[in-house]
């Protein structure tokens, strides 16, 4: 089992802070952006941004891959 690295876990914390815990900061209508209430606009922005954070975590994971033994499924290329 490969334990996730601290850096990857920190990357994962970003969406949790932005989408979940910070709700009192962004749950309002103004300023409306692109015609959307601010809360809806904020959450929609974090859809691609969350993907970006996970992509970063994936790069971190992939860069450690050579240390794994092939054949255990973990880093097997398809």
């Amino acid at each position: 089992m490969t334990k996730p690295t601290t850096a990857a876990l920190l990357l994962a914390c970003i969406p949790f802070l932005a989408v979940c815990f910070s709700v009192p900061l962004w749950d309002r209508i103004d300023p409306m952006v692109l015609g959307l209430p601010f809360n809806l606009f904020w959450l929609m922005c974090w859809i691609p941004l969350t993907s970006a954070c996970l992509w970063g975590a994936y790069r971190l994971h992939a860069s450690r891959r050579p240390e794994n033994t092939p054949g255990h499924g973990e880093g097997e290329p398809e």
Partner: protein
Amino acid sequence: MKPSVVAIAIIFGIILLGAVAGLFAGVRRKMNLEQWTVAGRGFGLIFVWLLMAGEIYTTFAFLGASGWAYSRGGPVLYALGYLTLAYVVSFFILPEIWEAGRRFTLHTEADFFLQRYGNKYLAALVAVVGVAFIVPYLQLQLTGLGIIVEVASFQAISRPVAMTIAFLIVAGFVLSGGIRSVAWVSVLKDSLMLIAAFSIGIGIPYHYFGGIGPMFKALAQTKAAHLTMPGSTANLGHAWYISSVLLSALGFYMWPHAFGSVFTARSGDTLRRNAVIMPLYGITLPLLLFVGYTAILVIPGLKSGDLSLLTLVRQTFPAWFLGVIGGAGALTAMVPAAILILTAATLFAKNFVRLLFRPAMKDDEVAKLAKVMVVVITGIALYFAVRSSTTLVALLLLAYAGIAQFFPGVVLGLFWKRVTMTGVFAGLVTGVGITAYLLLSKHDPFFGLNAGFVALSANFAVTVAASVLTPIQVSGFEERVEQVAAT
């Protein structure tokens, strides 16, 4: 031709197309237990994505989310929040679950508990709790499907008739092709779903207000409070949002069918890459919310928010297009329903009957019994759906709160060596007990918090405390884990 006839013809045409795709998928393959439940563990990125997107975007996203935007307003944003965060959680735990599945040939969530904690009563409890909470989720799909056909046919076809026909078809393709059928029908379902979401999400606000921006401007002027939390509810504020997002994001892959779909992947890496792209599909959800928000202004005063999307589509578009939307909606009920039925049937046959009563059963006999259970479980859900009149929201809340109670057992089982069988057993019983008590006595939200989240916190605390108090237990994954770690 009458508009109802056109719409219904197209809906059934789409359902039929789905049925053909599903039946065809299983042809020319020998359906043993391994193929039927986990497709031989051979799905690459595209099929895993199809399967997971297929089971996640259910009729709740289609009717329920727009319904919440209509009836509750701001609090509906929790659905957008948890859908995004669920994949962050999945990035870290799914590859580990898959790895355990590959090493020990696991098929179900209960198999995972059995292997990790080595206690058949715990595994059987997981199976029973899983099946018990799958039934309301299945009932939700059936009810949604009934609503769709009823509205699209201008009340010409009644809900029970529609539900019965559609579920005979679902049972049919589950029996013939297993999980592989479900992935294939997802292709059709997801393409239609995307077309439907974009055309109505953009088209409906445009038709009535000249665009999404003007629609929100009008709403902000007349009903500003509806757009933020707690919206049109009394007690769904920020504390509720945070607790609900956490509960749902953590509980998401604890669904036995979502958990089972992990095992269909070809490698752990497939699941990691899938987690990176999955959030992007969530962009369809805000589009459906736009429709719900438009409906408040255009057709206020509906008895049930669940009806808002379809009613608005019916009065805005020609009949053939109502048929396309209805067909897409029907498939979003049928695809998840198929996976739910398949999972519940396997759990019951393998992890309840065989584990507790018939240890000598062979895999082929388990598969046979599971197929009988497909028919039984479909029948039970159909009975509840016809008899009860609960809303989609209530059903989803109940089911999620219960299912999330598996989280401590799974995650601590993967990452904490000190967790014991006794701890997980005690935690699970506590969590399910508190969930049932709070929901049945109508204490949700509980002091502003999601009741399921309160139960999950207690569950976590009991699991950890009881584990520390009981003697150290060797993990069922342990031996080979050391081997891998040593290389």
